């Protein structure tokens, strides 16, 4: 057996060997990392703002490759804030969650739903606050929901569910028909977008002042696609527009509406104007 090297010599040798290996692998690893990020297999590091907000344990977990576990735990925590109607905390939690998993459209959709629908509804009902404060907060939560939705769409441009949720906020809470129509319009053709968004785009365009003609043309094009589109609401909307735009009667439609199963039962899901929400 050869005489052993001293501990110091060994440490120097190990450091040298590690450095040599490190220098060799660094370019290779950087290339792989870029490749992984490009293919959405690897997430970019969480934003600095999110890191500042994270508790130490959450940060350690995140850095230790437990990103998804940490975010799942935070979602649970968010659910807790939701049950306690603690909207500020809920928003802060989702700030981190969406930063940890920016590619998960569910998180974006959830926070838009929480702030845009639940928090605003709570402000409509919460009698403990003075009227003006409730109104102020209603606006604030709705705008924050829109902000989340826009950031989510930036991260997941092909997401249908974030846009559906955003459309609901515009439609139900802010009653902004033009914006609602715009979002439904964006939804058309996205993977996973439901069929009804094509009709809804038209319905809300019809309610957007100044765009009635555009809405009429659009809905007529849908109508001409065939009997599958001859739904009662569509026909009713076209007929309303025909009246409004004073379309000459030979050009007006004469069709028997097709009854969809949804329409047979879902009287509760009907919007003013007879639009049925699936």
């Amino acid at each position, binding site marked *: *057996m*050869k*005489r*052993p090297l001293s501990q110091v010599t060994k440490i120097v040798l190990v450091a040298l060997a590690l450095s040599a290996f490190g220098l060799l692998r660094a370019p290779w690893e950087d290339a792989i990392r870029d490749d992984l990020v490009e293919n959405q297999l690897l997430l970019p590091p969480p934003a600095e703002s999110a890191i500042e907000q994270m508790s130490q344990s959450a940060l350690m977990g995140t850095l230790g490759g437990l990103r998804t576990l940490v975010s799942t735990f935070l979602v649970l925590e968010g659910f807790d804030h939701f049950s306690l109607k603690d909207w500020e905390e809920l928003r802060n939690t989702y700030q981190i969650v969406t930063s940890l998993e920016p590619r998960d459209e569910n998180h974006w959709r959830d926070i838009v739903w929480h702030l845009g629908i639940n928090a605003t509804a709570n402000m409509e009902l919460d009698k403990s606050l003075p009227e003006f404060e409730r109104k102020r907060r209603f606006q604030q939560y709705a705008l924050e929901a829109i902000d989340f939705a826009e950031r989510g769409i930036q991260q997941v441009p092909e997401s249908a569910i974030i846009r559906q949720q955003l459309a609901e906020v515009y439609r139900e809470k802010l009653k902004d028909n033009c914006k609602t129509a715009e979002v439904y319009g964006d939804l058309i053709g996205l993977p996973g977008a439901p069929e009804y968004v094509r009709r809804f785009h038209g319905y809300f365009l019809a309610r957007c002042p100044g765009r009635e003609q555009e809405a009429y043309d659009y809905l007529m094009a849908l109508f001409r696609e065939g009997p599958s589109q001859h739904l009662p609401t569509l026909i009713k909307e076209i007929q309303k527009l025909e009246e409004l735009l004073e379309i000459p009667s030979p050009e007006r439609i004469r069709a028997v509406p097709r009854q969809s199963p949804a329409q047979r039962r879902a009287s509760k899901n009907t919007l003013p104007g007879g639009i049925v929400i699936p």
Partner: protein
Amino acid sequence: MSEELAVEVKNLTKVFPTGLRKEYVVAVDNLSFEVKAGEVYGLIGPNGSGKSTTMKVVLGLMAPSKGTSTVFGYESGDIQARNEIGFLPENPYFYKHLSGAETLKFYGKLCGLRGSELKDRIADLLQLVDLEDAAKRRLGGYSKGMLQRIGLAQTLIQNPRLVILDEPTAGVDPVGSRQIRDLILRLKEDGYTVFLCSHLLEQVQEVCDRVGIIFKGRMRREGPLEELIRIEDQTELTLKGASPELLEQVRNLIESDGSAELVEEGHPRTTLERLFIRIAGQKENQKESA
């Protein structure tokens, strides 16, 4: 006994650094000895005298600071040298999760044994160390003596020419100790070379052909056991059934000789160890006959 050398240690010195400063402890100091093939060689000395260090150098677990060590001509630590050695460390702890038979299988496979050859070898060794009944029991449930015996079986698994035993009976009760001693004698009969370390002189006395006495890292005396312990100018007579008259005549004869002197007279005593084993043996016999 052939003249081939099983172990040859030449001018071995081993120093250990202590602390951060350049201070050293000399564990073994210019030690030289040889173990001939086929003999039982005992390295004896008190705790801390350098026995285990010497042994580790021979095994290749440590490198000498100076000097050399070879096993059957191979440098210590060489994989071929290790193939010639079976080693039983002091207080061996094998994997507690393995049974006796599994332990032997594990070490056998490490030595390249396979199939029926390994199976037969395991059966033979379990029989040799009298652990056939405990073969399937996990080592966690073995007594100290049983562990030592399975350890001995493990040293023999690849049928090495040299068996190195470090304090083979340390902590083992007298019955177990006797069994191990008998096994060592058996190994000697079968032609194994045995190199053992011990601080129990009596044990070494019973099995070794040659001993080396090491103290503070240096070899103090070395040679065949008989030579080392013989008191050259004294003679011992042991008589059975001698009458007082006969004894008187002997005493007179001695007195009449000018140069001789009677140093001691009395009844020979058995050793405490022998007595214990005899009593234990009798108890066993009584139980069996009952």
